[in-house]
């Protein structure tokens, strides 16, 4: 292990360039540690975003050596074998400054996919009982741990080619709700995720599944939505 890392960090917004830094290398160092070191010791004007540092909040995702990753849980040893790191903002989102992207569109698409729970019970009703091993619940559980980091959204080529495409995270969220037997808006949600801007635009490249730090498979969720939406339209005409 060399004593220092050669780090190139994106500076600017849509227009800009990479700035080189030398950062001391440590054991068990994460990419977020590297960015934090640069901001605290080398250049306080560097803008980046983080919160929990333990892989829960989904705010520190960046493009590391060409691939989107959660930087707080990405060890330098895993991605910078030759001692070089290139850190850029996430792809497919507008850059505000340096490593900070504007995630409004990403979250707006979660709303557009009706990625929110719509219950049918009131507080007067008893708790809904859901069997943990029922097939629908197993499907929902497979995608429920999404932290909204936008790594999948950044990895997706269809998002790049078709800016209206809802993207893997929003569709994965929709699929968890379609499989939530307590939810009352299944049909409405299936209609919201249909067609060219929705699940049927997915080409099954599986970049989202390959990159998801939580090992979720949005590809599988989207495949499920494709089938359910098609079945709904065939049934209802």
């Amino acid at each position, binding site marked *: 292990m060399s004593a220092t890392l050669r780090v190139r960090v994106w500076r600017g917004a849509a227009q800009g360039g990479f700035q080189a830094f030398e950062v001391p290398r440590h054991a068990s160092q994460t990419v977020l540690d590297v960015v934090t070191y640069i901001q605290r010791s080398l250049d306080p004007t560097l803008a980046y975003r983080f919160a929990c540092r333990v892989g829960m909040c989904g705010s520190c995702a960046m493009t590391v050596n060409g691939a989107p990753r959660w930087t707080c849980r990405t060890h330098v040893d895993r991605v910078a074998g030759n001692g070089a790191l290139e850190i850029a903002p996430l792809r497919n989102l507008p850059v505000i400054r340096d490593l900070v992207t504007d995630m409004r569109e990403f979250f707006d698409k979660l709303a557009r996919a009706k990625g929110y729970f719509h219950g049918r019970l009131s507080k007067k009703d008893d708790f809904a009982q859901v069997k943990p091993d029922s097939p629908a619940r197993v499907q929902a559980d497979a995608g429920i741990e999404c932290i909204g980091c936008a790594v999948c959204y950044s990895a997706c080529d*269809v998002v790049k*080619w*078709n800016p209206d495409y809802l993207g893997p995270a929003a569709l994965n969220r929709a699929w968890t709700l379609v499989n939530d037997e307590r939810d009352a808006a299944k049909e409405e949600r299936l*209609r919201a995720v*249909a*067609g*060219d*801007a*929705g699940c*049927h*635009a997915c*080409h099954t490249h599986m970049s989202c599944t390959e990159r998801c730090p939580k090992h979720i498979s949005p590809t599988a969720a989207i495949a499920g939505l*494709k089938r359910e*939406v*098609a079945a709904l*339209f*065939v049934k209802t005409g």
Partner: protein
Amino acid sequence: MSAKTQTYLWLIQRLSAAVLALCVLVHLATLIYAVRGGLSAAEILGRTRGNLAWFAFYSIFVFAVTLHVPIGLRAVLSEWLGWRGAGRDLALLGFGVLLAWGGMRAVMAVFL
């Protein structure tokens, strides 16, 4: 175009792909069999002319191509060239008609 129509297009493309997978296999197997047997063009025509089974098979083949290709090109045109909207769909409808005409012309050439 409504999301429902887009969903139907997706469904038609998947169904036509399934038909094409079978058609291509039968077509290739027949091709290899005919070549290995050393059949001449005249002998092949002798078998296809007036044969309703081959006519039906290749008509289905052409029909599946006519459905499958324009729908696939629709995504290619919008994603790679940024061409979207009714103009693209109309052009693809025209292309589909061209495929059907060319395909059926070839089918008729070996049937009649």
